[in-house]
């Protein structure tokens, strides 16, 4: 559990470690420079938000995540700084 009052039931992993189609909740954004973080925050990537990993690019690098009804393209470097806990899928 972290100090912010967010419960971490699952194991915390980075966005890179979840598979396509999985849902996850953002736990924290680490080690991003303030300037880089700002855009992520404006796009809705804040701790507590649930996102879905939709697909991976042909060359394996940028990812598409769905967050707040928008699809965002994120590159691996950013994704590796986004810590999430996986939400077990309902199906």
């Amino acid at each position, binding site marked *: 559990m972290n100090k912010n009052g967010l419960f971490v039931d699952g194991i915390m992993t980075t966005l890179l470690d979840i598979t396509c189609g999985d849902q996850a909740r953002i736990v*924290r954004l680490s080690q991003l420079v303030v300037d880089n*973080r700002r855009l992520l*925050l404006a796009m809705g990537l804040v701790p*507590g938000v649930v996102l879905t990993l939709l697909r991976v690019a042909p060359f394996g690098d940028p990812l598409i995540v769905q967050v707040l009804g928008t699809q965002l393209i994120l*590159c691996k470097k950013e994704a590796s700084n986004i810590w999430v806990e996986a939400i077990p899928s309902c199906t």
Partner: protein
Amino acid sequence: MHINRRRVITNIVLFGNPNVGKTTLFNRLTGKHSWVGNWPGVTVEGKCGYCVSQDNDCYIQVVDLPGCYTIHHDISQQAQDEHITYQYLTQTFNREKDIIINIIDATHLTRSLYLTLQLLEMQLPCIVAVSMVDVVEKKGIQLNFDKLSKQLGCPVIPLSVSKRHTLCSLKASIEQMVAQRPHQIMSPERVTRLIKSQPGIVLAHQQLMQELAHLKESQVLTWPNDWVALRLLDGDTSITKQLPNVLQAKVKAILKSIEQTYDEPADILIADCRYRLIRHIIAHVKQHSIVVDQKICMNATLDRWVLNRWLAIPLFFIVIYLIFWFSIEVAGSLQQLFNVVSHLMFVDGVASLLQHSHTPIWLITLLADGLGLGINTIMTFLPVLAGIFFFLGLIEDSGYMGRIAFIMDRLMRFLGLPGKAFVPLMIGFGCNVPAVMASRTLDRANDRLLTVLITPFMSCSARLSVYTVFCSAFFVNNAHNIVFILYLIGISMAVLTGLLLRYTVLRNQQSSFVMELPPYHYPQLNDIMRYTWRKLWGFVRRMSRLLIPVCMLFALLNTITVKHNNHSVLLLYQAGKFVTPIFKPMGIESNNWPATIGLFSGILAKEVVIGSLNILYSTETPLKQREAFSWLNARMQIYHALPWVTDNIASPGARPLGKKALGNMVKKFGDSKAAFAYLLFVLLYVPCLSTVSVTMKEIGQSWGWFSLTWSTTLAYATAVIYYQSATFALHPTQSFVWIGAMISLLVLMWCALHRIVQTCK
């Protein structure tokens, strides 16, 4: 600006996320009364226009700000759009008179409101216009705009852009605000209301407000105190910098203590506050019913194919191929017609008219061969450019451009470029001119610059005409291999230059790559036509300023003759003969001077190379006689230039060499090695004048010259190195010296250019 200044009642500023329908609203509001320029100091297009008020009595000036996601000053200035917006809102914007129209997207309310809240925090007078209302309603969601207005504390107007009365209500709202001027300062509770959910931020905010109250002289005092305090907590370095050192240290300490107590930095906490407030607002405003998300479904199905891991790249190449096919083949078939007709009109026609009125020969040359030829060159480009820009507009408008960025990102990151940069580079294979112009689709200045600098190495279709002729003379059996190798060499030189630049002058600061994948959008023909027209007009305007004077200069040079062995010979040709020894190391012997002059004419346009080689190798009597203008002849020429007439007798660019010229050329070049070296030089040296002038306009004089010098040096060095290694066995010592010299020339050149560019900075 041709409107009466006194009757402008207000400035309105259109502001919002990218792709929310800002441009559509701008076009609806201003109609034809708009103009496009660059924002001061940067090459980001800004649009400005005006509309008439409801009673047709006065004007409202409309400014279209670039779309952005957050109001923020980026110190690295990488995100120019945000920089411009920030500068505009904090400096240019007159908070007592002007009005902001904040356009928010009903389908992405949360994210749109994130920006709106930041605007309201600044306490600027604004009207919120909600777009895509109909899309949301189709999904079965009702929005209560009155409640939204109450929650936000500013007028809210639903826009369904297709309907006229929404414009009226927008104008009415603007006029009502104008009537109540000066705008009252909005209540300062906004910020307090925002941060109340985070007690730590509230405390720090109060502390900073007190500090700011003691501040005497600073620019920050022109803005509301509570906003400044909030921005300081949010980590806005441009504001922190304006504070005295003592206070700066205090801000730092406060930020640090917040991060220690709450385990999250203050800016994340503030973002969290904003989202909490937004959730609260949306809960009040949104009335749900059944959600059937058809559009998302359609998007998802399309993307399953378009962004498929295995199909995405083949599909992308098919799209690019189709664009090429349409613009180079279909639209390009009109090129000949444009060429012949404009040549008849502006060159032959003008000349014969002037001859009839007994104008002096030099003036005829200046007007017909200079001005006329310049106009002719520009006209010839128009069909292909129109085709390419139309498709460029189409893929941008439909949302495919965003997908290209996704597909190609990894590949292009090798050069530190975004995936979108692949498109201008591909277009470069057709024609370098639109490729350089298409680099505007990139967001960051450095990326644009790099793309423009490496584009000329993409071998364009005009250069292909030179290759084909040479291949038919020297490489009959493996012509396609030679052409393929040339293309590959061009690409590798582009990559080489790109890498060199990336690791020296244009080092990229690591910035995040986050982009919204825009939903597919049914392309609006009207908007695409407008885009194409704007690009074409921009091309004509910019080109004429540089190309026409240079054409006139060339034309004048073309008339000066000198006496040589009792013949009068053109000075230009004499000069060609004179400089030919420079090209000896790459295999052009001194009796092969037509090849040199071919290179010179290639600076004007690569299509001309074959034409001039044809004349020079077949006759070697350089004085050209002007043909008498006759209507019969003109009609024949136009007839043969029609796209549906298949024999291209009249095409001067693609005309293969005559038999005599071909034999002469083979004899003078000697062997295929020299010919290949020549082709290498043609591939890499100065691109055509049109590309040069567009490049100069796009990236500035100093970078333009850099591009010219670097490409020519690279061309010379490559050709010499190739020729000397190919003939190494004949004269090992000489070859060795030449190769060594060329490599050190390249290194020296690079160092010098690097130095110059850095001092220029």
